[in-house]
């Protein structure tokens, strides 16, 4: 049985950063990922990472922008930590090899991003996530003697011991089908987001809420689950993202009348207002008949106003996406986009060191909710969140490991998970296909838990999700083998997505106001008197979601009206 002081689930930016930080403290570290680390979804992050590194900038300004962006639901103590540590973190990345774009003086160049009061986004063309992820993986290869990697291993559940603490995980080697119990003094969940609950989404196929639901089932509270970000610029057909970097470089949004309609909702920041604001403005144009594209469900993003040379150098990836996936040369003509599901602000509730209320269980990255993003995440703040809180969780867990003995764990849970898998494989071909259920979940969520919501739609969504949960219990798989059985993993992932989706719907129904990404047409105003608080969701004894509240931490910035 493998044993580690610190065991990390997930090898995206949060997981790899946590592993490197823990290893630096000299403890034994393992990192498990269901895909090869460089395939993790962090690789898709395009636009950049925020840090107040310019001499003219101040981390407090970054923190204030983040608080305002969050619609005052973010916890200000955590935001202060993130923003004040950001410059040091970006310099660290630079020192280990990230090829950040420079200005003519050879210093890091900074681009404009939404909701920011000045240019503070460091970037590598529009492959920032890829560049950082690959450089962290270089470091993992360098430190392979101190970080043990389990690549293409799928975690099926967390082990909770009799005292209620986390003592390890059960995982399956995807290449062989072998199940293994991993004992650990500390487990850090860094298993990413839940975008596949929606269709379309900008998220990769592997973003299936695994960690969120594993923690939820193990008794950890989820927080801010109603806060789901719709990104203003995604391709209609397949959900692919056009980075906010495009608007950062100066691109315009136009309706069917050729009007820069953002002037109506954000006369100062225009296209660079917060994402929730821009997505809402677009949806209003579309709903009121000023949309473009074949069915009028789109908006023009006009990048031709950016000098072509600059576009080719700094927005290379979206030039390709436009060409390859939409047949449009974005340097010559506008491209049709629409708001699309992109990010979940909510997740497993943690403190500033990544600790969840379950002893020995940490969470960091998109799976976690610290909460630094509150009701709406600013662009380029997520990479920062993964790195800062990944590092802090790694360091804290390493320190905690020193005073603990290795927990002894039985093989009972392994047998339970192995049986669960055998049962899935043995299901008769009578129920629905996994792919059908997933499709219905995605389109339902995208219809009712989107930019605009109301009680009726949310109630309908809840009914669908509850029915799909029943159907999923008998959905069958075709693959009966053990080598790379992706089919059975798909069935397990579907279960994770359904549980997570249910908590999103329940939280959205609960919050009877409009704040950040949650806009209720039946409660269109923000209501600080009643709703300046986080919604927490626990899994009850009966498996049903139970709602409770926790306060928002306010340090220096009192809630005020949000204008861009």
């Amino acid at each position, binding site marked *: 049985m493998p044993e580690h002081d610190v065991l990390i689930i997930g090898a995206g930016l949060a997981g790899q950063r946590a592993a490197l930080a823990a290893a630096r403290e000299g403890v034994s570290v393992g990192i498990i990922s269901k895909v*090869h680390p*460089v*395939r993790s*979804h962090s*690789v898709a992050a395009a636009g950049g990472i925020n840090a107040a*590194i310019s001499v003219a900038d101040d981390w407090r300004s970054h923190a204030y922008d983040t608080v305002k962006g969050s619609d005052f639901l973010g916890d200000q103590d955590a935001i202060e930590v993130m923003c004040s540590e950001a410059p040091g973190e970006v*310099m660290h990345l630079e*020192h280990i*090899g990230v*090829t*950040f*774009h*420079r200005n*003519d003086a*050879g*210093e890091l160049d900074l681009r404009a991003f939404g909701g920011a009061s000045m240019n503070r986004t460091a970037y*590598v*063309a529009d*492959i920032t996530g890829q*560049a950082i992820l*690959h*450089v962290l993986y*270089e*470091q993992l*290869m360098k430190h392979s003697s101190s970080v043990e990697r389990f690549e293409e291993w799928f975690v099926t559940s967390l082990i909770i011991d009799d005292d209620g603490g986390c003592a390890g995980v059960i995982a399956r080697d995807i*290449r062989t089908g072998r199940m293994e119990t991993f004992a650990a003094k500390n487990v850090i969940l860094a298993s990413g987001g839940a975008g596949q609950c929606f269709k379309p989404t900008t998220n*990769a196929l592997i973003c299936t809420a695994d960690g969120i639901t594993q923690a939820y089932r193990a008794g950890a509270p989820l927080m801010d689950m109603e806060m789901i970000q719709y990104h203003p610029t995604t391709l209609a057909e*397949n959900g692919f993202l056009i980075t906010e970097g495009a608007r950062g470089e100066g691109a*315009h949004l136009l309706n*069917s*009348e*050729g009007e820069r309609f953002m002037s109506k909702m954000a006369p100062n920041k225009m296209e660079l207002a917060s994402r929730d604001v821009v997505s809402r403005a677009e949806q209003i144009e579309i709903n009121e008949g000023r949309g*473009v594209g074949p069915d009028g469900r789109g908006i023009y993003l*006009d990048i031709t*106003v950016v*000098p*072509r*040379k*600059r576009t*080719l*150098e700094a927005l*290379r990836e979206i030039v*390709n*996406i436009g060409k*390859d996936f939409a*047949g449009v040369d974005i*340097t010559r*003509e506008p491209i049709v986009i629409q708001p699309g599901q992109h990010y979940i602000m909510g997740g497993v509730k943690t403190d500033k060191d990544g600790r969840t209320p379950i002893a020995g269980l940490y969470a960091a990255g998109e799976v976690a909710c610290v909460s630094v993003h509150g009701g709406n995440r600013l662009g380029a703040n997520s990479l920062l969140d993964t790195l800062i809180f990944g590092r802090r969780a790694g360091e804290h867990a390493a320190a905690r490991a020193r005073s603990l003995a290795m927990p002894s764990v039985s093989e009972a849970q392994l047998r339970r998970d192995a049986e669960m898998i055998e049962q899935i494989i043995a299901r008769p071909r009578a129920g629905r*296909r*996994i*792919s059908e259920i997933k*499709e219905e979940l995605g389109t339902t969520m995208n219809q009712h838990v989107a930019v605009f919501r109301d009680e009726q739609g949310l109630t309908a969504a809840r009914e669908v999700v509850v029915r799909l949960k029943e159907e999923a219990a008998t959905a069958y798989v*075709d693959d*009966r*083998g053990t*080598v*790379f*059985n992706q*089919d059975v993993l*798909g069935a397990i992932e579907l279960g994770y997505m359904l549980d997570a989706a249910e908590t999103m719907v329940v939280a959205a129904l609960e919050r009877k106001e409009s704040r950040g990404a949650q806009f209720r047409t039946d409660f269109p105003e923000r209501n600080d008197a009643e709703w300046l608080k986080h919604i927490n969701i626990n899994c009850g004894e009966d498996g049903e979601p139970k709602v409770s509240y926790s306060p928002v931490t306010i340090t220096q910035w009192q809630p005020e009206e949000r204008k861009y």
Partner: protein
Amino acid sequence: MSEFTLRLRRYDPQSGEPPYWESHTIELEPHRSVLEGILQARGRFDGSIGIRCSCRSAICGSCGVRINGQPGLACHTHLDEALERSSDGMISVEPMGNMPVIRDLIVDMDAVHWKKIQAVTPWLLAREPVPEREYLVDREAMVDVTQSMACIQCGACVSDCLAMEVDPDFIGPAALAKSYRFVGDPRDSEHTERLTALSEDPHGLYTCTHCFKCVDACPKGVNPMGQIMRLRRIAGSDHHIEDRNNGYRHEHAFVDNVRRNGLLHEADLLPDSYGGKFNPRAVPELIASMPVALRGLLRGKITLRKALTHPHKASKELRAIFERIESKPERYELNLYVSGTDEDNEPNEPAPAEAIA
């Protein structure tokens, strides 16, 4: 919607059966990707079809396969494009080459690709002292290494590398592109050591045969062969590494030969690479190459007159090109990210509203 027939190479290591082909008919718009086609087949007909995939948008590097014999990403190939390249009206998808197959379209990248990456010290050996803030480096230098940084480690270039087919120990296109990422990085302190190791390695820098396969295969425009040529140039011209594979002298002999003759005079190239016809080191090589030369003579591919005299001389224009290039104080490398003309630097005229509406 159109119908497409996918012919998938299937293999189940547990069945004891050899690999076989299986066809599925799917329905999608022609500009959708081959990956979407495979996922539709998997969702509708057979959940056991094995393929790695995640991002669907050519950034995670999971879905490297061969489509109608061509290596590439399944998510980066349109169905209609794939059909155009097909000879039998079907889109054939099989696993990448040069790597063992685990199952269906999934190959063992650890056994080949990652092992080779690991071999080139794939991390920055940072210059000391580490500054408090960022290293101050040239803007162009960072943009330049970004091209090799753009590699998504998909393995498509490894799949069909000719040199690797012949010499499985060849370090290969992706790992060499990764090396350039450090050799081109002004923050790295061990350029010479890296280049020396690559040059001296009998399966290293000089094993590539310039076949262009990796350039065609690469979905991200990394141009691995181009990076290899730049590594050679930097190893030879800037660091004067005279490797035991004779790569350095060969390269110089090549350039001098063209400068003198205006085109490549093959008969001189080999002896020149070893220091000239009268250099003792060249003699065994010349003898070794005699059979090839003789065969060439017999088949009329070379004539004695051409082999021994130099009928062709470099033109004035060609000499001018050499002078112009060699007198430049700086060298500009062609690069994907450094592109466009100066006019491109002007803002575009905003499109008139009625034109877009």
